[in-house]
């Protein structure tokens, strides 16, 4: 196990041989999670604001969406999207079906986090904003959101890590991301433990990087700067 020599059949040699498959697997993992994070954050913020301040029918609709998304396993969502979209004549590649499903899932989580964060901002802040004559958009932009962001960042980073971990499920519908790329290599050379360890290490690196970025953001937003 973990023989780093460069003879054929040893891990070092096989890993070097398959470096491009591994790297493209990492690329697909990073691309799918990056896209999902961006889409889910934008939609999640919109949904979260609608969930906090929307008309009652909008709140009801989004609440229903969020609760449904949180009650269904991601894998089922991914399979449903993959097989279901084709039924409506929308033939997207597996990659996009996966990104859509993951985004739908993560949007619900981020919307719920944002709602919690917005509601934890004291009512007086909104009233003070009203009192000095800010319009609703301005109150959100200058008063509520800057405070909500601080409370929302830690769970948001957690959701991002969940998304990266969730991209492994795309392997089930045939997206060659890091996990499936590693499995394809294992099928060639039977170095099962070695390549799972390599994949683990790469996932740890990706997740660690995200956690670090999250830490930097938290520090950046952590206190009031005048």
């Amino acid at each position, binding site marked *: *196990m973990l023989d780093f020599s460069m003879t054929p059949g040893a891990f070092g040699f096989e890993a070097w041989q398959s470096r491009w498959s591994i790297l493209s697997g990492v690329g697909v993992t990073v691309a799918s999670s990056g896209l999902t994070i961006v889409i889910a954050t934008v939609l999640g913020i919109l949904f979260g604001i609608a969930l906090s301040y929307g008309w009652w029918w909008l709140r009801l609709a989004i609440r229903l969406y969020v*609760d*449904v998304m949180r*009650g*269904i*396993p*991601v*894998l*089922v*969502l991914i*399979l*449903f999207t993959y*097989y*279901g979209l*084709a*039924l*409506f*004549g929308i033939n997207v590649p597996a990659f996009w079906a996966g990104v859509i499903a993951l985004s739908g899932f993560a949007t619900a989580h981020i919307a719920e986090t944002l709602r919690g964060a917005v509601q934890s901002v004291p009512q007086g802040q909104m009233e003070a904003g009203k009192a000095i004559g800010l319009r609703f958009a301005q109150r959100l932009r200058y008063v509520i959101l800057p405070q909500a962001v601080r409370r929302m960042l830690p769970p948001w980073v957690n959701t991002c*890590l969940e998304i*990266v*971990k*969730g*991209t*492994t*499920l795309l*392997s*089930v519908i045939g997206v060659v991301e890091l*996990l499936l790329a590693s*499995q394809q290599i*294992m099928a060639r050379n039977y170095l*099962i*433990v070695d390549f*799972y360890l390599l*994949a*683990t290490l790469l*996932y*740890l690196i990706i*997740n*660690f990087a995200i956690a670090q970025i999250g830490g930097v953001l938290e520090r950046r937003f952590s206190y009031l700067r005048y």
Partner: protein
Amino acid sequence: MIQYYFDWSVITRNAGALGEALLLGLGLALVSLAIGTVIGLAAAYARLSCRPWLSWPVWAYVEFIRCMPLLLLIFFVYFGLPEFNISWFDKTQSFILTLSLYAGAYMSEVFRAGLGSMPKQYVEAAKAIGLRPWQRQRYVVLPVMFRITLPAISNNLISLFKDTSLAAAIAVPELTFVARRINADTFRVMEVWLSVSALYLITAYTIATLLRLVERRYASIR
């Protein structure tokens, strides 16, 4: 948009298989939660212990599991352990082992937070009335901690139940696996996935409701 005619007979014909698969998923989640609770409790105490040789490995275990995708862990245990000549388990047992280890890491965080939020006075009061360390844990700390952590435990149970869907990847015949099989056999995409989603949803919310009743039953203040 194309025409689609719903044919729910696919579901009624396979209702038995789906029900069995749902029960299997529930069973997997409950067994893993039980084992995970034991692991998590031990890990939480080890994490809080002041002996570094005890707390560091547990820290590494928890962080490792929490940073790793569950699917990777499932494959690792299922395909990796036989490489070390450990192959006495079948796929269901392998999945239970994985999910328990996974649950253990998450439960240990829950319990650590629970132990951390124990009011100090309780322990001091227990000491004052002369309970021995073991009795202190058994009659004071653990009951209070379980009450504090019950909402988090029920959240974990629901997410474990949803995670049992990943067992489909190693062909454990739970709900997602059976759904995929029916889907492949009949191509009734909408019927299959709508009803499976509904089954997951209903089960998850039933668990949530039941556990909320338990929470109310065991609330300290009634």
